[in-house]
């Protein structure tokens, strides 16, 4: 699988660049994940605020709720949850689609037409995941804030303006940019792992379900592992981002 990942990287910058394919895969990844990410972001936003509220109110610190909400979403909840959702939705579908193409000889057919199937099928999917992940994460963050605001408004009728001001007072760019960009790595994991299982399967029709399942399980695990490492690295490089 490591070799497979290296091969992806080696092939990204080789002509032809497959821009059409990348563009259409970005559309696929985005369209498949957007509703899921939006709904989860809103729901998590509401729930998070319910939790922080019950704690902070006892300390008389309810004005901190928006800030806590934005920090927790920007720094960890947004990136990690978005990545896990995408790995479930997109990872499974990439695994199944490629495994199906393998089982029905469509990948062989591409090769027989003297098209490089790896460059044509795998590389654009990985690149699309890398590019779309940070966008989806940002979207998740804002859905989380929106959910938080709705929940807070229901409780205390806090105005949107005040909510936004409070949400962003204690937040630095370094709380937002590095954690969001780290999701590009998650995207790489999702694209590479699921393409690997789909593209390399050799078990015919039964392999399709297995490829989908393995894609999700392995990419979710690797995402969480990578998160640990990336958080460490971000703290090293941007000490001020530690909350």
């Amino acid at each position, binding site marked *: 699988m490591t070799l497979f990942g290296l091969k992806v990287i080696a092939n990204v910058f080789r002509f*032809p660049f497959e821009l059409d394919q990348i563009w259409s895969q970005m559309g696929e990844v985005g369209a498949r994940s957007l509703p899921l990410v939006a709904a989860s972001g809103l729901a998590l936003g509401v729930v998070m605020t319910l939790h922080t509220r019950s704690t902070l109110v006892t300390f008389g610190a309810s004005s901190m709720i928006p800030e806590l909400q934005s920090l927790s979403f920007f720094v960890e909840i947004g990136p990690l949850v978005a990545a896990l959702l995408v790995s479930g939705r997109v990872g499974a579908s990439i695994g199944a689609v490629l495994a*199906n193409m393998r089982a*029905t*000889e*469509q990948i*062989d*057919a*591409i*090769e*027989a*037409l*003297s*098209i*490089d199937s790896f460059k044509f099928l795998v590389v654009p999917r990985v690149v699309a995941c890398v590019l779309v992940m940070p966008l989806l994460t940002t979207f998740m963050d804002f859905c989380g804030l929106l959910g938080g605001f709705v929940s807070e408004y229901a409780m205390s009728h806090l105005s949107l303006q005040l909510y936004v001001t409070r949400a962003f007072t204690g937040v630095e760019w370094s709380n937002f940019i590095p954690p969001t960009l780290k999701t590009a790595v998650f995207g790489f994991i999702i694209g590479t792992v699921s393409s690997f299982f789909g593209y390399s399967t050799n078990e015919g029709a039964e392999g399709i379900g297995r490829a989908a399942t393995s894609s999700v399980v392995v990419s979710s695990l690797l995402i969480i592992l990578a998160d640990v490492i990336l958080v460490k690295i971000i703290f090293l490089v941007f000490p001020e981002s530690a909350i």
Partner: protein
Amino acid sequence: MNETQDTAIALDHVSKSFGKKQVLRDVSFSVARGEAICVLGRSGTGKSVTLKLMIALLKPDAGRISIDEDDITQLERKELSRVRRKMGFLFQSAALFDSLTLHDNLALPLRRLTDKSKQEIEVIIDHVLGQVGLADDKGKMPVELSGGMQKRAGLARALVFEPQILLIDEPSSGLDRITASEIDDLLLEQKTKHHTTMVIVTHDVHCARRVGDRFAVLDQGRLAALGTPQELEHHENETVRMLVGES
């Protein structure tokens, strides 16, 4: 005449196994330029595997496979692409791209591998689809086509580059007699008009006799017989006689 110049495809002591299962054992034969060879044999004897070896979708465990002057078992990916460009392949399963319309199935290779204009591509697509009788089905998705139509669509896709070599896996399985004989006509036309070298895997002796110059009979992974239909009718191997004889 020089023999190598006249040989389009040559298998030289080719063996192939999958895991413990040996599929092809020491198979050697060659196909001359412009010749049509029909490969006959019972199901599961390795006919499809033989075709896939010829376009390097599979690698043999032993032996050499040459297309014109190139030993394709040794080629780098770029060189291999060059060789494959002269070949057309019809898969037994047709293997159409199921996310693309019939039109786009044919347009994809043309758009990617040639610098032909949009209009030129449309002309080619209309032409080959007309040849296989699917001119009215351009906009359909593969799932909307019957098995026989998928087969013909696969054949159309194999023809878009006007290949010098056609490798065809069971062109008429799942087709009615009339359509099957139309496909035979098309193959025959490829041979006489374009002098296309062909290897055709088929169970249809009728088709084999019309189109094939020689028959290669595979039995349990070995080349059991090779020769003209007349020569093979009195072959000592009973399987060969049964496969070749007109039922």
